[in-house]
C-alpha cells in the first residue's frame, strides 16, 4: 500500500531534532464496496421448513470480498538506541452505508500502542489480532486474494478475522534467520475470577527462499463472551453472541457452530505452508477447532448439550499472475464437524477469484464461492450451506458472486 506520509516536525515544537528525523504518522485506508449475488439466502421458516430466496445487494467487503473498508493512522517515534514507540488506530466502516463496522466500534479493526527494540522485540497493548491470525491467515486464500467469503463455513477457525482480541498484551520476537514468534494474552478483567473470559494465543513462523511455514494456537475461555462478546452489539451470557436459530420471519445466523455458545473454552490450533514459484503460489492450511465444556454458564444452551464439539478443516489454494495487471486465484476446502449428540456435518467449498489491477492502488475484482453441506449442524438440524459473511442458504447449496473495486490510499 502506498501511504500518504505526514512527517511531524517535532523540532518545531521544541523537541530534540534527532528524534524528529525518524518520527512519522501515516494515514492509510481502503474503500471497497462489493456488488453481491447470492443464489439462496434464508428469509425465515414455515411449517415446511426453511425458506430462502435470491439476493442482489451491495455489501461492504469486510463481510464479503475482497478487502474490508477502513481508515487508519499509524505512527512511529524513534527513541534512540534501536528503540521506538509505535501505535496503530484502525477504523472499519461500511463503504455502502457509511456506518461504523465491527458492531459500532470507532477503532474496531485495531487499536494499540507499544514499544519496539530491534534486539529485544515488540510489546503492544490494546485491541489486536491473535497470533493465529498474524501467522496462519496469510497462508489462506482469505488474505491473499479471496476475502471473507472464502473463509471456512461461518469462519469456524477465525482465520477470516471475525474476532479481534480486546484488552490484549502482545509480545513479538525479532525475526532471526527467517524465524519469528509472538504470544498474546487478553485479560478477562472479571473481579474475583482471573480466568473468566481470558484468551491466550501464540504463533510462530519461518520464511526463507520460496517457502513460508506457520503454526498458531488460540485458547479462549468463555468464547461467547470473550471472542464473540467483544463488540458493542453483543450481549451478556444470556445472549447467543455467535448466532441464532432464526424464526418464522428471520434467518439463522452461523448455524455451523452457534449451537455451541455455552462452551467453557474454545481451542483452535492450525498450521500451513506455502511455496512460491515465479508466477504462482501454492499453499495448504489445516486447522482444528474445539468447543469444550458445553453447558457452562458462558452462554445459552437451549438444546442441553454437554461434552464437546470439534471441527477439522483442510484447505488448498493457488494463485497465478497471468500478466502484470491480471491475477487468478482458486481454492478448495473441506470442513468436517462432530457435535456432542452424534450430530456430524461436513462442508465442501470451492472459491475462485480474478483481480485486475488498474494501478498499484486500484483493483477491480470478482470473487465467487460455492459451498455444499451435508449431515446435521450445531442446532441438531439438517445442515445448510453457510458461506462466511452471508445469510445461510435454506438448502444444502449456496453460490455467491461478488464484483467490486478496492481502492487503497
Amino acid at each position, binding site marked *: 500500500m502506498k501511504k500518504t506520509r505526514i512527517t511531524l516536525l517535532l523540532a518545531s515544537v521544541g523537541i530534540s531534532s534527532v528524534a524528529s528525523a525518524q518520527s512519522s504518522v501515516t494515514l492509510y485506508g481502503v474503500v471497497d464496496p462489493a456488488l453481491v449475488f447470492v*443464489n439462496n439466502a434464508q428469509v425465515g421458516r414455515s411449517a415446511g421448513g426453511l425458506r430462502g430466496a435470491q439476493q442482489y445487494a451491495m455489501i461492504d467487503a469486510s463481510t464479503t470480498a475482497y478487502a*474490508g473498508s477502513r481508515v487508519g493512522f499509524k505512527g512511529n517515534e524513534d527513541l534512540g538506541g534501536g528503540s521506538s514507540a509505535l501505535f496503530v488506530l484502525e477504523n472499519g466502516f461500511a463503504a455502502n452505508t457509511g456506518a461504523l463496522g465491527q458492531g459500532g466500534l470507532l477503532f474496531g479493526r485495531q487499536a494499540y500502542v507499544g514499544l519496539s527494540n530491534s534486539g529485544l522485540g515488540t510489546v503492544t497493548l490494546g485491541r489486536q489480532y491473535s497470533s493465529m491470525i498474524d501467522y496462519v491467515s496469510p497462508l489462506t486464500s482469505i488474505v491473499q486474494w479471496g476475502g471473507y467469503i472464502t*473463509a471456512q463455513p461461518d469462519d469456524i477457525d477465525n482465520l477470516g478475522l471475525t474476532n479481534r482480541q480486546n484488552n490484549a498484551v502482545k509480545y513479538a520476537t525479532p525475526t532471526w534467520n527467517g524465524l519469528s514468534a509472538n504470544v498474546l494474552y487478553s485479560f478477562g478483567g472479571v473481579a474475583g475470577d482471573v480466568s473468566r473470559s481470558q484468551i491466550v494465543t501464540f504463533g510462530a513462523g519461518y520464511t526463507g*527462499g520460496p517457502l513460508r511455514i506457520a503454526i498458531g494456537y488460540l485458547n479462549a475461555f468463555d468464547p461467547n463472551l470473550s471472542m464473540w462478546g467483544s463488540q458493542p452489539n453483543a450481549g451478556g451470557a444470556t445472549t447467543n453472541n455467535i448466532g441464532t436459530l432464526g424464526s418464522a420471519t428471520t434467518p439463522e445466523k452461523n448455524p455451523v457452530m452457534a449451537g455451541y455458545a455455552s462452551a467453557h473454552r474454545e481451542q483452535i490450533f492450525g498450521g500451513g505452508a506455502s511455496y*512460491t514459484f515465479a508466477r504462482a*503460489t501454492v499453499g495448504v492450511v489445516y486447522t482444528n477447532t474445539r468447543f469444550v465444556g458445553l453447558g457452562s454458564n458462558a452462554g445459552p444452551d437451549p438444546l442441553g448439550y454437554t461434552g464437546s464439539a470439534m471441527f477439522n478443516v483442510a484447505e488448498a489454494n493457488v494463485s497465478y499472475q497471468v*500478466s*502484470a495487471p491480471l491475477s487468478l486465484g482458486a481454492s478448495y476446502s473441506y470442513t468436517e464437524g462432530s457435535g456432542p449428540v452424534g450430530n456430524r456435518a461436513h462442508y465442501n467449498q470451492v472459491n475462485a477469484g480474478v483481480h485486475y489491477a488498474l494501478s498499484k492502488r486500484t483493483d477491480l475484482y470478482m470473487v465467487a464461492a460455492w459451498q455444499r453441506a451435508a449431515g446435521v449442524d450445531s442446532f441438531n438440524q439438517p445442515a445448510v450451506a453457510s458461506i462466511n459473511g452471508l445469510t445461510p442458504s435454506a438448502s444444502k447449496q449456496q453460490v455467491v*458472486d461478488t464484483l467490486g473495486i478496492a481502492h487503497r490510499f
Partner: protein
Amino acid sequence: MNQKVLLLAAVVTVAALNPSAYAQNDASSGAAAAASPSAAPASAPPSSRKAMKAADRKLARAVRKAIEHVKGLDATRIAIVANDGSVTLAGSVPQAAQVDVAVQHAKAVPGVTSVTSRLEVGEIGP
C-alpha cells in the same frame, strides 16, 4: 452455470481494458523497451512466439532465484512477470524498504532491461 458466465464476462471486460489502462503506468518501461529493441537477451533470437514465451519464463525464474535468498527481503508474496527483458514485480512485501531491495536485485539479473514495481506494502486482508 451462472457463475461461469459471469467469470467469463469479467475476464473479457478485463481483457478489453488492458491496453488503455497500461498506457500510463508502464510508460517509462515501455518507452525504454521501444528505444532499445536490441536489448533482448544475447542468446539466439527467438524464432517464434513459443520460443519468446520460453525465454520470458526462463528470465522470470532467474529473477525469482536472484531475489529469494536476499537477506532482509521476504519474497514469498512476489510474483514475477517477464516480457522480452522488461520485468514486473507484483504482489506484496511486508515493509516499504523491501520494495527497493527487490527492484535492485531484479535489475542486476543478466537479460533484464527494465523493472517495474507493482509491489504493495503489507497484505490487506478482509
